[in-house]
Each structure stands twice: as C-alpha cells, then as structure tokens.
C-alpha cells in the first residue's frame, strides 16, 4: 500500500464508502421500487466507479460496472421494474466490485479474479426484461460458485451465504447481535486476509463488528502465521471527519492551553514539588495534544496547487504563450483554513505571472530566452512559517513604467519618487488605487489587484514580498503562518494595560534608558553620553539602531490614549511589517507566551488596531496588536522617506565621527573587535551543548541545528582556557544562524578607534588601536563563510549588501 498511487488510494477510500451506502440504498430500493432518488444515487455511484476504473485501467472493474450501469439505467428510465431478482443481481454486482476493490487494495492490481460469470448474470437479467423468475433464479444459483471463485481465499464463512445477498442486507438492522454469536465467525474470518471479501459475503453486519473487534486477534494470528504482516485496510486507516468537529476540538485545545498557562503561572509561585511536577507533565501533554490536533487540520498545499496546471494551461493557450509549470514542495502542509484563505490570492498571482509576466514566445526568443516560459511554484517551511514562492522568468517589472503610472495616478510626488529605491518602486504595485480595470491592458508590469492580494494575506497574519529584475523575471513570496489559532506572542505593558504582539513580527527588543524623547535642541547637549535614546528627524521620533535610523511609534499615542509626560525607562520592540521596520515604544516587556487568538466583534475589528484578543494566564483579556495596521497608521512610510532624506547627511557626519559600536572579545590570545551590527545576539553555551556532527561542531539553538565555529581556531591558535560554558556570538542572516565561540567578551566600545590599518587577510579586515591596545577587526560573516561555505546558500544578497554597507561605513 505504501507504494500505491495516491489517486488509487483516494479512489479506494471513496468507492468503499460509496459501496456501503449502495448496500443500504439497494435494500431500501427493494422496499420502495419506484424511488427515482435512490435509483439515481445508486446509478451515480456505479457510474463514478466505472468512470474512474476506466481511467485507472482496471478493466475487469470497468466491465462489471458497465453492465451494472446498463441495468441501472433501464431501471432509472422506468424501462423495467425493480424485482427481488434484480436486487439480487445488483447486490451480486456490488459484491464483485468489492472483491475487485479489495484485490486492488491488497495487491495493487485486479488479480486473477474472474468476473465473467457476474457479467453474464447481469447481462442475462438485462435481456429478460420481464424478469423470468425461473431462469434467472436458476442462473443465479449456478453463478454462486464462480462468484465465490472470484474471491481470493474464499472461506467457509462465505460459502452458504452468497445467495442470501438480499436477505443479508435485511438483516443489517440486527447489528447488535451478541458478541457470543459473532465469535466463531470472527475466528474464521481472522484466518483469512483480506477479510473484507469474506466479510462481505458473510451473513450480516455482525461481521462488520468483527472487523472492528478483530484487529488484536488478527494481529496475534498473523504474527504466528509469518511474514505477511497485517495491513490496515485503506478504509480503516482513514476516516472522514466533519471540519466543524475539528474546529471544536481546536477550540477546546485552545482553552486547554489557556488553562494550562493559568495553572503553570499559578504553580510557579508555590513550593509544592508534586504540583510542579504535575504541571510540567500537564504542560508537555497539552503541547503534544495541541500539536496533534493542529496536525489533523494540516493539508498538503498540493490540494491547492492541483488545479493550477489547468489554469496555467488555459491562460497560456488563450494568450498564445508557452508556459511550463514547475511545482516544488507539493507536500508542504498548512492549516486548512489558511489553505482556503490563500487560494484566491495565489491564483491571482499565478494568473498575473502568466498574463503579464511571461512574454510571448516571439518576444522571448528575441530576448534570448527559451520560447517556453517557466513558472515555478515553491513551498517550504521556514522558521515556523510556510513560504510560498511564485517565480516566473518573464519580463519582470518595469520600474519606469510603474513610477510613471504612480505619478500619473498621483500616488506619489516627483519629489518622493526621486528618493525611492528600485525596491520601493516595485512595491508601489501594492498601493490601493495603483491598479484599476483600465490599467490592466496598458501597463506591461503587474499590479492588477495586488493591493487586494496583500490585504488578504495580511488578514491571515502573512506577508507578501515582491522581487523583480527587469527583463529577468519576478518572484512573489508569500509568508504564511502555520496556523492561525495559537500563536506565540510577546506581552507588553502600556499605561497599565497589557497587549500581545505576535512573535512573527518581532525582530528584537531594545531597552531605552530614558523613555522621554529629547526635543530637537536637546540632541546636541547629550551627545556622546552613550545612552540609548530617542532622537528627532523632521519632527518625528527615531532611534539609532546600530547606526541605522529606526522610525518610532509610541503605543499609547497610536492607541489614542491621552497624552502624558513620559518619564523613566521604556522598551522598544523592533517590529517588521511588510518590508518596513519600526520601533514600538512600550512601558514594560512582560514575557512571551502562547496565546489563543479570539476574534473580536465587528465594532472592534473596524478600529483597525487590533488583530484579536486573547486570555492571558491570569484570566484577564488582552488585546492583540495588529502590527501591520499600526505600521500603516503611524505613517512610518512617510517617516521613512523623511529619514532617508536625512540619513544621507547623517551618514556622512556619522562616517566622519566613526562612532560605530564595536564588540571586543578575546580568543586564543587575540583581541578581536566585531562591529555590533553584525552581532545578532550574545549567548552563553554550556560546553556539553556543543556536539559533533559530520566532522563539524554544532549545537541546538532555538529548535535549529546551527554550526559552531571557534574563533580561536579561525585565527590559527587555540583556546587557552577550558571552561564549562563558552560565551558565544550568534550571527543570523535570512533565517540561517551560526555561532562563534570566543574565550571572553571584554567590552562594547564606541568611537574608540584611534588609528587603524587596512590589511586584507580574509575575515580579518585590519587592526586598530582600541582602548590603547591593538585589536584585530573581524568580519564575522567572512569568518563563518571561510569555515563553512555552505552558510551562504539561500542567504539573500540584499541582507548581505546591507551588512556590508554598515561595515564599510564603519571601516572608513
């Protein structure tokens, strides 16, 4: 069964289910011979099996169902009446079909079953419209044997019952026959696998029960009998479950998770070890249950993709293009609800690619590309999210046309345009109003309804990115959360109330020494104090995060709370929405917890600040912030432009001051300085946590296995110390992380470089005098690449460029 084609599997599950229904329908039909509804239902089932078996080249199955269908169509059209004999014949046909299905299920083929006798019986019945009882009855009596032969490993249990097909069904009612009477049958049945054939031929539904009860005994028996282990029948290994039931389960698990959080937070205050141990178990079990239930809702993305080849083909055909569709990662799973939600946006993007992206064959060959365009769909998991990429090798987005269009539509001003990067311009296609019906034909780029795509994807907590190279193609990247119902979140406090921020959009947390922003003049007075502080650019608050200006949003302000004098320390949550980063200023950061997202009533949804609400560990309700909406509402976009404007001047000034912060570490007798901008995090790893795998050192970090490098060895020396734990510099780039072990973290210095030399020894880019000592300057990324060239795979050139820029400016 393992190797069985998925289509065949589905066919079996569906057909077996339908057959059970068919049995009931046929019996009901006998009692109510005139029912067109029943006849149609039976006809449809047989017709479906016939069609599919023809398609799958199960010829015997096809021939049986074909004659059966003929008989049924006469009945349906009223050409003949239903008689007990007809019912008999039809039930026989159903039995034969079932035998064939069993054989397919167990051996993958129809086997050497002989269906000819059954076909003959049916044909005979067909040719005797008056239902000459004698002859048909006689024939059917003769036919018992062949039918039996048609079953593999026919059994004693089956033997006397076949003729009683009709009666057998009548007895279905008597399901609750005592287990005692079932017992003997059970043993016999268990002696024969496939059991289903037998079960079918056997007298009544009591056998059905056997199938449910038998597994243990079956297993025993089988184990004794040898190598052919029991297989779970297709119909038994999957069940159809009502989605509503799953939703209910999911909700209940959500409640359980909440209750668990409450118990855990309560138990944390107590000294009771028994309780603490129990809560730990509860914690584990609840997590596993949550995972399990979540899995039941997971479906491969192929469900969605399956219809795309047709869409692409039709579209390509209608516009005279040649497009090849490539799909990678079909079995990537995500939540059913999400699958449903991305259906339209995804189809839209694919249509866009075919329609506007990939060029006509003629145009392609002129551009030196193969005449057939390629559209690639790729799906994969990345750090708890699902990424779906739609890439084409078409014409790409013509930024000139896009900007011209945006100007014409007055979405941006000439002034703004001058300051926009290529990427910003590409992003204009997401602007509402950029695309209207008229622009579809006269703009060669994309953007038809892309704002709707973005809105829909963001509504489910995902994001859309667009990468395009003019002339080379476009990639649209959808990042979707795995599930909607339970998300990890950070709880923060603002004016005494708690809010949850989905971790997905969290980048990092920064402590602000002083929450009170300095006024514009105040900036110079505190120059060089080394305090993390808020500055103003063009009247808007910003924060200098590792040399880059980050627009700030005060949570209380954006929530519309009355203004108060800010004082004391505050925290900055660096958030990412769309492609934009901004800092959200909150009073306090509390903790991270798994929260269950509850939707809000319509009145609150319309406010456009909250993505939902949740119940925290102590039972209080907290609002979940809608990061995307916050970003939009706070006009970080405009702010960014202002910043970009100021930054050019800033950067020059900063370059003169050369005040990038450096992390100074010791490793193998060297003093090494690393630009803080290249340090994602500082950690301490236990020596035992560093393991060996494939000749390299690795460690487990936040659910990932990451490479570990020792800085001392990179510098060609050895660590002089043996320690239980090591300080580690963690470097991340596009979801890839590496750890660099150092001997000691010495200091973080600012503006302390007196003189430096430039030499290029790979990762060491020079040396400088820092705090009166000669210190080597390290490019962490180069060092990691030198030790592990594979680290560069998948990493995005943008990020690297960004880092290099910081670094260059730092080195000047």
């Amino acid at each position, binding site marked *: 069964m393992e190797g069985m084609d998925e289509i065949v599997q589905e066919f079996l599950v569906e057909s077996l289910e339908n057959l059970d229904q068919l049995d009931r329908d046929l019996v009901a039909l006998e009692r109510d011979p005139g029912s067109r509804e029943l006849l149609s239902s039976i006809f449809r089932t047989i017709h479906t099996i016939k069609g599919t078996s023809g398609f799958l080249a199960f010829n015997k199955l096809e021939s049986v169902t074909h004659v059966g269908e003929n008989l049924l169509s006469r009945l349906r059209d009223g050409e003949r009446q239903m008689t007990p004999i007809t019912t008999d014949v039809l039930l026989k046909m159903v039995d034969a079909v079932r035998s064939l299905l069993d054989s397919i299920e167990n051996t993958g083929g129809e086997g050497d079953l002989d269906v000819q006798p059954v076909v003959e019986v049916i044909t005979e019945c067909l040719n005797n419209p008056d239902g000459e009882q004698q002859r048909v009855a006689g024939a059917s009596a003769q036919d018992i044997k062949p039918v039996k032969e048609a079953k593999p490993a026919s059994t004693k249990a089956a033997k006397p019952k076949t003729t009683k097909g009709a009666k057998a069904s009548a007895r279905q009612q008597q399901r609750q026959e005592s287990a005692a009477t079932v017992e003997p049958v059970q043993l016999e049945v268990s002696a024969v696998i496939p059991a289903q054939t037998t079960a079918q031929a056997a007298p009544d539904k009591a056998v059905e029960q056997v199938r449910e009860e038998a597994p243990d005994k079956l297993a025993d028996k089988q184990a004794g009998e040898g190598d052919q282990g029991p297989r779970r029948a297709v119909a038994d290994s999957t069940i159809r479950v009502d989605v509503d039931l799953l939703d209910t389960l999911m909700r209940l698990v959500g*409640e359980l998770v*909440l*209750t668990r959080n409450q118990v855990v937070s309560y138990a944390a205050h107590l000294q009771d070890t028994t309780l603490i141990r129990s809560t730990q178990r509860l914690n584990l079990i609840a997590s596993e249950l949550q995972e399990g239930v979540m899995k039941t809702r997971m479906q491969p993305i192929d469900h969605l993709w399956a219809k795309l080849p047709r869409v692409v083909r039709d579209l390509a055909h209608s516009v005279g293009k040649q497009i090849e569709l490539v799909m990678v990662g079909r079995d990537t799973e995500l939540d059913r609800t999400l699958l449903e939600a991305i259906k339209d946006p995804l189809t839209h993007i694919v249509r866009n690619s075919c329609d506007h992206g990939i060029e006509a064959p003629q145009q392609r060959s002129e551009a030196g590309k193969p005449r057939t365009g390629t559209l690639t769909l790729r799906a994969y998991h990345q750090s708890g999210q699902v990424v779906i990429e739609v890439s084409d090798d078409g014409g790409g987005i013509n930024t000139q046309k896009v900007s011209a269009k945006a100007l014409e539509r007055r979405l941006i001003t000439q002034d703004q345009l001058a300051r926009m990067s290529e990427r910003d311009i590409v992003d204009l296609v997401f602007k509402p109003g950029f695309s209207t019906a008229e622009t579809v034909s006269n703009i060669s780029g994309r953007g038809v309804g892309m704002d709707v795509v973005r809105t829909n994807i963001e509504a489910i907590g995902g994001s859309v990115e667009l990468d395009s190279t003019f002339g080379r193609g476009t990639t649209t990247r959808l990042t979707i959360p795995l599930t909607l119902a339970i998300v990890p979140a950070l709880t923060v406090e603002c004016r005494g*109330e708690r809010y949850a921020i989905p971790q997905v959009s969290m980048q990092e947390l920064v402590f602000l020494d002083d929450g009170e922003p300095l006024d514009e003049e105040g900036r110079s007075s505190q120059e060089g104090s080394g305090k993390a502080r808020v500055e103003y650019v063009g009247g808007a608050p910003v924060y200098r995060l590792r040399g880059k200006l980050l627009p700030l949003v005060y949570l209380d302000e954006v*929530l*519309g*709370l009355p203004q108060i004098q800010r004082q004391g320390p505050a925290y900055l949550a660096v958030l990412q929405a769309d492609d934009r980063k901004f800092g959200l200023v909150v009073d306090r950061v509390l903790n991270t917890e798994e929260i269950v997202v*509850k939707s*809000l*009533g319509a*009145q*609150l949804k319309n*406010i456009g*600040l*909250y993505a939902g*609400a*949740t*119940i925290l560990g102590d*039972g*209080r*309700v*907290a*609002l979940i912030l809608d990061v995307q909406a916050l970003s939009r509402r706070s006009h970080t976009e405009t702010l960014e432009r202002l910043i970009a404007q100021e930054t050019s001047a800033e950067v020059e000034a900063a370059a003169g001051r050369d005040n990038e912060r450096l992390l100074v570490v010791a490793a193998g007798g060297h003093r090494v300085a690393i630009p803080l901008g290249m340090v994602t995090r500082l950690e301490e790893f236990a020596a035992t946590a560093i393991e060996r795998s494939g000749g390299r050192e690795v460690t487990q970090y936040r659910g990932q296995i990451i490479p570990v490098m020792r800085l001392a060895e990179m510098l060609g020396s050895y660590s002089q110390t043996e320690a239980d734990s090591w300080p580690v510099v963690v470097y991340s780039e596009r979801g890839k992380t590496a750890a660099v072990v150092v001997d000691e973290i010495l200091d973080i210095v600012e503006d302390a470089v007196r003189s430096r030399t430039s030499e290029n020894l790979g990762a060491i880019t020079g040396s400088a005098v820092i705090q009166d000592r000669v210190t080597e300057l390290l490019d962490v990324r180069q060092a990691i690449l030198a030790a592990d060239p594979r680290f560069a795979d998948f990493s995005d050139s943008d990020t690297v460029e960004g880092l290099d820029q910081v670094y260059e400016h730092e080195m000047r």
Partner: protein
Amino acid sequence: MTTTQYATFTLADQWYGLEVERVQEVLRAQLCTPVPSAPPAIAGLINLRGQVVTALDIRTVLGLPERAQGKDPMNVVVRVKGEAMAFLVDVIGGVIDVDDSSFEPPPDTLAGQRREFIRGSYKLDGRLLMALDVDRTADAQ
C-alpha cells in the same frame, strides 16, 4: 391576553427591561479590559469562561450620566446575532410578565438619542418599564 416576559434592570434610577429569551445569563461586575480607540459605549472586553465578550455600557448608549465611582455595574449577557455580548447596567431587577396590551410607543418626553434604542414602554402600576431594543443597542457606536 398575551404576555411577554421581561428581564428588568435599572439605569440611573429608571426602569428598563429586555425580552427574557435574549438573556443568556447575568453576572456580577467582571474585570474589564478597556479597548483604546473603541467607540465610547464599549466599556471593554470581559472573559466569559474562556470566551472574549464585548461589554457595552448602556448608560453611555442611552446618553445617561456616567456611573458613580465605586459603583460596580452588573453584566447582562445577551445573544446578538449568535454571539454573546455583555450589557452593563446598574442594578438587576426581577423577571416580570407584562401584558402586551399595555405597550405604548416611547413617551414623548424621551430625548432623541435615547428614543432610538427604546422600542416602547409598558405602563405598570404607575411605573413605566422601558423596553430596550437589544439589536439596535448592540449596534450602537
């Protein structure tokens, strides 16, 4: 003579009621999480056995003066379009049967804003019971 059952409560010493079949339950004052930027009538969100329920202050809806400090409101949880919603009121009264024939349109003395949310009134033993329009109230901004 047909009668209707009303769950009654008071707001600023006035007597109000709503159809008893709309009421899911009545709760004491609950911890209420305020929702910044929400319409003024929305008092916040309460946790009703793991369900997040929007609480609406009926005083605000009807344009009555604010509840005095230290006086905790009661929650009347009603079903609106299949969802639970909490109405904050001052004091809960009993459930009474009112004679449909004593129903009258809202009294003329009722000010404009309030009129919108009152379906009418019942004259009972010299007292006036004002029938709240649950659906309109729930939609109040």
